[in-house]
Structure formats: structure tokens, C-alpha cells
């Protein structure tokens, strides 16, 4: 089992969710996050002139998938979240020791 953490543009959440559903990845947790990459912040409009915002709004998707599904899932995310501009985001893949479904107590791969 692997945990995929994808930090993407907020407006790409829906296309990514649909693409993941199509390949059988249903479960995911989504949060609104603020972050920055190499592009740093951006300038926003103030009453006169502008000010810099150092962190930009992003969406973080967390999904735990079977080892054999990792490639498909990553492909789906990259395909749908990419614009080619700076700020498309990042994906991190982490090992997962175990998973437990709280309702039934199922453990391991059958719990995800």
C-alpha cells in the first residue's frame, strides 16, 4: 500500500477526482492548503498599488492505493492536473504500514 499526496491547483480537483474514480480509486481525503514552490508568492491588489502574498491556495488530495495501482493513479493525476505553467503542484508517494476500516475492524489491503 502506498499513500499518494498530491498538491494541485484547486480548479483541477474535479478533473482529477473523476479520473481517479474511473480507474477505481474512490476513497480520498481533500483539504484546502496554502503553499509555495519555486515561483514564490504573487502580487495582489490593495487600495492603491499591490502587496505580495507568499502562499498560494492549493488543494491537497490524500489517497491510499494498492501497490499495483500507484502507476495508474499517478498517471491520472499528472494527466489531469498539468497545465505546463508554474504552480501545477507536486506529488509525494509514501509507504503505508497498515490501514484499518473503523466500522468493521478490517485491516490491511481489504480496508482501503
Amino acid at each position, binding site marked *: 500500500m502506498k499513500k499518494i499526496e498530491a498538491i494541485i491547483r484547486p480548479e483541477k480537483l474535479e478533473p482529477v477526482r473523476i479520473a481517479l474514480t474511473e480507474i477505481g480509486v474512490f476513497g480520498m481525503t481533500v483539504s484546502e492548503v496554502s503553499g509555495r514552490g519555486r515561483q514564490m508568492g504573487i502580487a495582489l491588489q490593495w487600495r*492603491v498599488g499591490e502587496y505580495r*502574498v507568499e502562499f498560494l491556495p492549493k488543494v491537497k488530495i490524500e489517497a491510499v492505493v494498492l501497490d499495483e495501482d500507484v502507476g495508474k493513479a499517478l498517471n491520472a493525476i499528472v494527466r489531469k492536473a498539468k497545465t505546463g505553467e508554474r504552480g501545477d503542484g507536486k506529488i509525494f508517494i509514501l509507504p503505508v504500514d497498515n490501514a484499518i476500516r473503523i466500522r468493521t475492524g478490517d485491516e490491511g489491503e481489504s480496508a482501503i
Partner: protein
Amino acid sequence: MVNNGDTAWLLVSAALVMLMTPGLALFYGGMVRRKNVLSTIMMSFVLLGLIGTLWLLYGYSLGFGPNLGGIIGNLDWIGLRGVGQSPSNVYATTVPQLAFMIFQAMFAVITVALWTGGVVERTKFSAFLVLAVLWFTVVYCPVAHWVWGHGGWLAKLGCLDFAGGIVVHISAGMSALALALLLRPRKGFKEKEPMEPHNIPMVIMGTGLLWFGWFGFNAGSALTSGGLASSAFVATNASAAAAALTWMVLGWIHRRPSVLGIATGAVAGLAAVTPAAGFIPPLAGIPIGIIAALICYYCMVLRAKGGIDESLDVWAVHGMGGIWGTLAVGIFASVAVNSAGANGLIHGSGILLAKQLAGVASVATFAFVATWVLGKIVDRTIGLRVKEDEEVVGLDISQHGERAYGGVSP
């Protein structure tokens, strides 16, 4: 003789002006960081309680009571002694004096609230309350007497201020500047940390309430419900509309048509037309508003370039808007609009402009210097500023023990 129509309008106007203070609280509250929104709102809202009480106890007497040397009212009307259901023989002679008194109370409340915009996000609440009482007593009441009191020296000079360009906006604007210089910038201001306005829709709600309430402020200052109130009402709206549009265009030229910008423009136009509303032909509100937006916009640019953390630009908007509007009376005023007024430059007389200039210069200087001294006294004794860690955590938690947007569970 009490006139029922006039009384009804003045009481409604007093209620309209009352609503401007919570409106201002939202206007300011939306522009600060989320950790300081309650503190910012509180600094306005508490004055409905504090000044609302002091005005009845002694403020009205100092501002409007029997004249002492043109400088201040005496204490004959302390605790509203003799202020009742019959009209005064010098102020608003067609309404109960109680109605005039409570209308004026709302002006005192919002004037103190206005300058809080210069000192948000770093002022200790207890020290602020002490400063507010001192400022109300030493700056507001005398200036109100000079300009509006029977026998006040600026009133006798013939300086005109229909609804408070001098008394409210110049005094608050200059005081905000003095206090901002005294307090020094917020932590992180010099380092250009982002001081992001945390809720612009809140600013717009506040602007809407201010604009709405301003009809009571300006048209109510006719103190009658007839033609003059109507004229002042139209002039007020004309200036607000023209200034809002102008500010939007200025922002667009430099970058984008900003929402925060159009709201700021509306307030600049409203502040500028305040001293003029009942002395000028209504259409003159348009040039007054356009020029107000230009002046206030570039004063704000200048203030920011100067590295002065007058945080919400009370000086640029209210101070400079009020100065422009007060001088504009000397340009656009016409006795055809208000026989109690005078003719300005356009209608053939230059002397009014000189009188207006005297009002601007004296009150701007007095407000700045007196406020500096009062601020210094409070700073030396109680300390005006919160501790550094209190400022970092935010004043909502450190001063009030509350947070505006709490909770993880639904």
C-alpha cells in the same frame, strides 16, 4: 415650536448615523488580518457605549453649552440639565433639544471611531479606552464648539462646515496620523510582511452601511426635513458615486479595477462632500467627488511610500478628503442653495475660501498636536502598545480572549 416633520427626520437621521459606527467597524474589520478583526471591530463598537454615555453626562454641554470665550461650552447643561422636549433657541429651533442632542451624540461616537483605523493591530485596549476619553474631552468637544457651538470662534468667523468635514473628518484624520507616528509601525510592516485584508466582502458591507448612514449624517444636518435636506442628500450621493467610479478607474489604470478600491473611493467621496453637502448646488457633488478620489488616492500612495504605518489610511481618506471638501465649500457654495451659507469663488466671492482655509489650518494643527500630546501622556503612563508576543498572537486572543472564526467541528 416643535415641527413634527423635522423631528421625525432628525430622529431617523440620528438612528442612521448610529448605524455608521458598526458599519465602520465592518469596514475596518475586513481590512485587517484575521487575528485582529474582533479587536478592530471592538475599538469602534465600544464607543457606542463609552462616548454614548459621556456625551449625555458632559460632552453635549462642553460642545454646545453656553459659550466660554468661543473655545468651549460651559457646564450648565451637564447631565442634560435643562435639555428637554422643548427646542433650543439657538440650535435646530424646530425640534426638541433632546433630538438635536442625540443626533450630535452619534457624531461624537463615530468621530472617535474613525481615528482607530490608524492604530489597529497593535494598541492595548485599556490604554485605548483612556485615550478615547481624553481625546473626546480635549479634542472633539472643543472643536465641535469652535465650529458648531453658539459663539464658537470659527462659527463667528464665518467658517462653514455643514456636517463635519472639519469637526469629524479633519480632526479624526490628523489625529490618526499623529497616533500612527507615535505608535510606530506594526511588527513586520518595515519587513514588508503581507498585511492581507482578510475579508473584503465585510469591507463592502461596512461601506454600504456607511453610505446609507451618511444620508442621515449629511441630509440630517439640514436639521429640517425640507428642500435643504433633499439638496444635501443628492449632493452626498453625487460625490460618493463620482468618487467611487474615479477610484475604480485609477486602480484600473495602474493594474485592475479593485473592489477594495471602489469601496475606498466611495468613502473618500462621502467624507469630502460632508462639509459642503448643504451649501453647494447638488451637481457640484460630482467634481468634489472626482477630485476627492484623486487627492486621497495619491495621498495614500505618498503615505505608503513614506513608510508610515497609518494602517487604514484615515489621514489620506478622511483627513485629506475632509480638507479638500472644506476648501471646496469656499469654491462651490451658493446662498441660492442655503441662505444661511455664503457665496464661494464660483458665485463671486473669495473671502469664504480664506475663512475655510483658517478652519482647515487651525483644526488640522490643533488636532495633530493635541492628539500627539495626549497619546504621549498615555504611552508614558499606561503604555499604548501591546507586548510583542501579544501582537504576534493577535489582539483578538490577547486583548479580548476571543477568536472570530473558531471551531473545527461543524
